[in-house]
């Protein structure tokens, strides 16, 4: 990279030249949103990278890598405040690592079959439209309540559900819950699976699942979720690096630097603005990204044929 072309940088793994500032601002914008709403942002970064012509395999693997940075600082804060259930988090990590290992295997298989790009897009369309739709609905409800002058009190989660009738119960002191380890492992596994295939932390599924399924108190949910995300995305990153060689360090550094800075400002602004409108805005953004990905699935491609290097057939299995 010469000084005259300081704007352009060649990504060694993605194997394309990109504009440094575009990626830095992409990281900063997503970091800003994640700071404002307390979400990881992986579910926005990966589709944005795909829109920017980064190969989906690289976007997913690098997405997982950049999630570590924001989750690590968040988890550290919660650990110091004591709002982190290490025992529950560690059990979620165990499930998460198993799920991520399965996910990586499926990822390799899909890549060999030439279906990875499609499945990644489909998963994003499903998750982004579901999460975006629910968020939009919830924030519109909240706005209506505020306008009607009611206090928007969150519905207290019910006392017991089917989850509490499962065997192998364990006591988690920090969370003040006594729950079977089966749903904990399954939840961790599902998030780990998504983390490796979609390049997300999975907080947007983990947080509601912990609140509504496991009845974990809200104050320890975020910290415990971040704790699990750090370990699972770290595991995913190493696995992606060793099996697919698709982690782009240069790309990850650009995104992380932007992301860390953006998150600080996002957090400050988020405290001053009204929650419902912000959530409605984020919901619309999430829906727009999902819609854009969905449209691409239906648009007739320029060329129905494509050629790529055949991946070395893995005989070892």
């Amino acid at each position, binding site marked *: 990279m010469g000084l005259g072309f300081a704007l352009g940088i060649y990504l060694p793994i993605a194997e394309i030249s990109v504009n440094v500032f575009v990626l830095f601002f992409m990281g900063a914008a997503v970091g800003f949103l994640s700071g404002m709403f307390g979400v990881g942002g992986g579910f926005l970064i990966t589709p944005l990278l795909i829109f920017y012509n980064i190969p989906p395999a690289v976007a997913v693997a690098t997405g997982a890598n950049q999630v570590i940075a924001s989750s690590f600082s968040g988890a550290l804060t919660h650990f110091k405040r004591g709002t982190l259930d290490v025992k529950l988090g560690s059990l979620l990590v165990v499930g998460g690592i198993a799920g991520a290992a399965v996910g990586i295997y499926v990822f390799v298989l899909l890549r060999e079959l030439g279906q990875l790009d499609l499945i990644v897009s489909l998963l994003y369309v499903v998750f982004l439209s579901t999460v975006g739709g629910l968020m939009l609905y919830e924030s519109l409800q909240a706005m209506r309540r505020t306008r009607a002058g009611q206090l928007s009190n969150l519905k207290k989660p019910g006392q017991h559900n089917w989850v509490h009738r499962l065997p192998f119960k364990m006591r988690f002191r920090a969370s003040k819950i006594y729950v079977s380890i089966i749903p904990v492992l399954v939840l961790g596994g599902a998030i780990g699976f998504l983390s490796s295939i979609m390049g997300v932390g999975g907080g947007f599924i983990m947080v509601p699942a912990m609140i509504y399924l496991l009845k974990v108190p809200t104050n320890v949910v975020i910290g415990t979720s971040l704790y699990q995300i750090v370990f699972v995305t770290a595991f995913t*990153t190493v696995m992606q690096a060793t099996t697919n060689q698709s982690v782009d*360090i240069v790309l990850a550094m650009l995104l992380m630097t932007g992301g860390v800075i953006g998150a600080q400002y996002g957090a400050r602004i988020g405290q001053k603005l009204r929650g419902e409108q912000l959530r409605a805005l984020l919901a619309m953004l999430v829906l727009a990204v999902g819609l854009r990905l969905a449209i691409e699935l239906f648009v007739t491609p320029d060329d129905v044929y*494509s050629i790529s290097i055949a991946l070395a057939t893995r005989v070892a299995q």
Partner: protein
Amino acid sequence: MNAPAAALILFIALTAGQYARAQQLPGNKETVEIGLSTDTIAITSGFRGTDLTVFGALDNADPLIQRQGRYDIVVILQGPERDFVVRRKDRFFGIWVNAESVSFQHIPASYSLASTRNLQDIATPKIFGQLSLGVNNIFYEPIPDGFGSSESLKEFTKEVPRLKLKQRLYNQRPGDVQFLSSTLFRATLSLPANVPVGKHIARAYLFRNGEFLRESSTSLNIVKAGLEFRIYRAANQYSLLYGLFAVFLAVVTGWMGRLVFRKD
């Protein structure tokens, strides 16, 4: 992509003695030689593609045939052989999905050709077919998987050169072999921005009156240099360490962010 880059000029290693010995001989005594002044080209990450100039010599040529312009030369530069998959998208429930695919083995990853004239003016298609010369004559060997019908094999085989030409990894430049004197010629080949690294083979084919006389070849190693390529190599050769380092970088970045912004 189209940023101009300085042409790499490779000089021939010709000895003066060969010129001195050049003389009129009856029969097919013509010889063709190409030589490269270097056997390795290092490409840096800013590489946007360039022209590669190869010089060569035609010796023992018949001056009469030469004056009539009936000697033709084709020079190719062929990249390392790899296996490729060609896929076709079909519509399922409105969504475009990669459906049928055919794998091919030992396909040159890149192929650049320069010739004195259009190939069809040099010799008959049959001769080019026998020599496997030209993007449409390379032998695209499908890996049989027992699924593809012979028709779809034919259809997919036709797509290989088209897709490769579209990616600029294959290219043909008729008219880009020029005689500089009665013996010396210059071929201009294209090295695309995405030229594969590895051992490339340069070949010169000599034709007289539409007949193939002989060929000669030499090899060229293309390597990538620079920090970006070292990162690429690290990711492939030391993937575990690379992955751990990626995690370490992320943790440090997250931690630094906290340190920097905690003050205010």
